[in-house]
């Protein structure tokens, strides 16, 4: 059999951790899909059904670009919304396009039974060592948590740098250095080093800070290209950006009971996928007196659409402005800019009136 070259769709900065998991844990080569670009989306859209949510299109674009870069084995995850059915259709479309690749569809694994995952992975590497993968898994989890931690810091401070671009440069260097990690200890060491470096970056914060929280659908909120780098745009205006949604909070430290308690005045039942986290953070940030909230999702995302009537009530009850963005393959850059500017002007005016 030819050497396995595995790939998974691009998703924030997690490809660094995934590369580690696959190379160190599974002992296979990992092909990182090139960063998502307009071409990625165009490729994906061309072969996807018209009105499917845009993460499906991005993922397909990533797959094709990964194949172009030599990948021969693709992994797709399972999920509780449409995501759970992505894999089978992606596999079919790629097959119809004439690509000969192996496709690992994690929706065939049962989340209640971890062993089924092991079985799926065994298909990738039959000589899988449980010991090796579990030690790599620990480092992988640490890496994910560290990437999130560094991102949080940058998000909340990057708007106030004295010298523009310093933090971004450091963050890039950090991610690059993470690639040299051999184990969990390395991850800790490198993360500690860069945390200090980031803290040493000169920032100048005004007395009255403007705080804006970002909520929304899993993919769109975490993959900056798909939300037109909305966090960066906002930060540039001197806003502290908060984002709860990341893999650490939604998977590693997930606390459904707490969420349910916080939102009980608005929501009785689980409303599907990320909608609970969306409502949960909206309530918390509204109570904390944030200046505004931005809701992002891909066009047609049902769970997030269903969260919107709830958000409207929260906005009403706490008098907090919420801006809604829905992204698809045809979203215009200027439209987003204009709406962001108007939102910014509005929260500035409100701030002054207070």
């Amino acid at each position, binding site marked *: 059999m030819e050497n396995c070259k595995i790939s998974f769709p691009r998703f924030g900065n997690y490809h660094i951790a995934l590369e580690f998991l696959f190379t160190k844990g599974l002992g296979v080569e990992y092909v990182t899909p090139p960063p998502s670009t307009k071409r990625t989306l165009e490729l994906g859209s061309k072969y996807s059904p018209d009105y499917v949510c845009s993460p499906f299109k991005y993922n397909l674009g990533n797959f094709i670009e990964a194949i172009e870069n030599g990948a021969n084995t693709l992994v797709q995850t399972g999920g509780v919304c449409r995501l759970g059915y992505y894999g089978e259709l992606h596999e079919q479309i790629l097959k119809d396009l004439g690509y000969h690749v192996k496709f690992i569809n994690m929706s065939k694994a049962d989340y209640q039974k971890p062993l089924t995952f092991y079985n799926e992975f065994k298909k990738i590497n039959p000589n899988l060592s449980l010991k090796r993968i579990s030690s790599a898994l620990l480092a992988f989890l640490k890496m994910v948590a560290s990437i999130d931690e560094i991102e949080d810091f940058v998000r909340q401070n990057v708007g106030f740098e004295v010298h523009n671009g310093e933090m971004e440069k450091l963050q890039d260097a950090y991610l690059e250095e993470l690639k040299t990690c051999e184990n969990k200890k390395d991850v800790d060491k490198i993360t500690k080093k860069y945390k200090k470096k980031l803290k040493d970056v000169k920032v100048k914060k005004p007395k009255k800070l403007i705080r804006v929280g970002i909520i929304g659908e899993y993919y769109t909120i975490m993959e900056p290209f798909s939300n037109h780098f909305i966090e960066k745009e906002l930060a540039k205006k001197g806003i502290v950006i908060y984002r709860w949604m990341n893999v650490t909070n939604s998977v590693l430290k997930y606390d459904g009971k707490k969420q349910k308690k916080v939102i009980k005045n608005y929501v009785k*039942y689980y409303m599907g996928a990320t909608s609970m986290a969306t409502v949960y953070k909206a309530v918390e940030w509204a109570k904390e007196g944030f200046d505004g909230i931005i809701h992002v999702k891909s066009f047609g995302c049902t769970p997030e659409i269903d969260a919107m009537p709830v958000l409207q009530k929260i906005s009403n009850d706490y008098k907090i402005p919420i801006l809604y963005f829905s992204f698809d393959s045809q979203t215009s850059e200027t439209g987003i800019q204009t709406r962001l500017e108007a939102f910014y002007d509005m929260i500035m005016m409100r701030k002054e009136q207070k």
Partner: protein
Amino acid sequence: MKIGIPRAFLYYKYHYLWESFFEELGIEYVVSPYTNREIYKQGTTYAIDEACLSSKIYLGHVAYLLPKCDYILVPRVFGYGEDGTVCTKFQAIYDVVNNTFRDQKIKILYYNINPKETANEFRAFLKMGKFLGKKKAAITRAYLIAKQNQKVNQMMDIRKQEQLLESNQLKILLVGHQYNVYDRFIGDPIIQTLKSLGVCPIIADLCDKKKAREASHEISETLPWAFNKELVGAIALYQSQVDGIILMSSFPCGPDSLVNEILIRRIKGIPILNLILDGQEGSAGLETRLESFIDIIKLKKEEKDGKL
């Protein structure tokens, strides 16, 4: 006390059950009328723009009922366990309705289907019956009768359709969610147009659901949604007995956006028309598309029969 039942979404799956349950318990209820333009328009004013047409129609029915009854029945379904999951819309609908109509002080009669509980439907109805102030014995009796009624009626509906399969007319399998196919505003114009073209529409929804869910695996292995499994399985069951397939979906249905694509790529040897309805289109466009689809099928059939 008067219960309002929206004639939308799960009504089409459960109306035999609901109606006879309330009748047996002696509880007054009113079902909203067939969807009309007014109800649709009401729905669009209350719904989020991007929400699917079917959910807009649902909210329109709730709005219609609001001033006419004390409680509105809005059941919530988490899923059907091994039979499959549901679109998150059905997980969320209780809270969507509650928030959308909060200012109108809506009162909701609800029950929750959660597969993690055993005998979940009966338990859910027991709870609902108690909320309505009825005794356990009476509720149990009403539920069992209603359940029997539902079973018999659904079987009869399937039988009726089986007879249609014998007909010599051109037969088209209409594949769509119950709440779309049977809706006067969405599905009925398609059924009527087909009939006027001399075609016998076969409704995919009318089939043995258990058999259909099993048969769906022949076409798709990881399909998560129970309702889509039943429809996909119905194709496997009926395909050899019909001349063409129409997939009809409401825009932008999440599950259908993927499932229809799988079907188009995997079902071979039979003409398929993919209709996506958004409530905006006039009837002329729809009729033209259906006519040309039927014309092609007729032509192919005649070629095959050697008449040409």
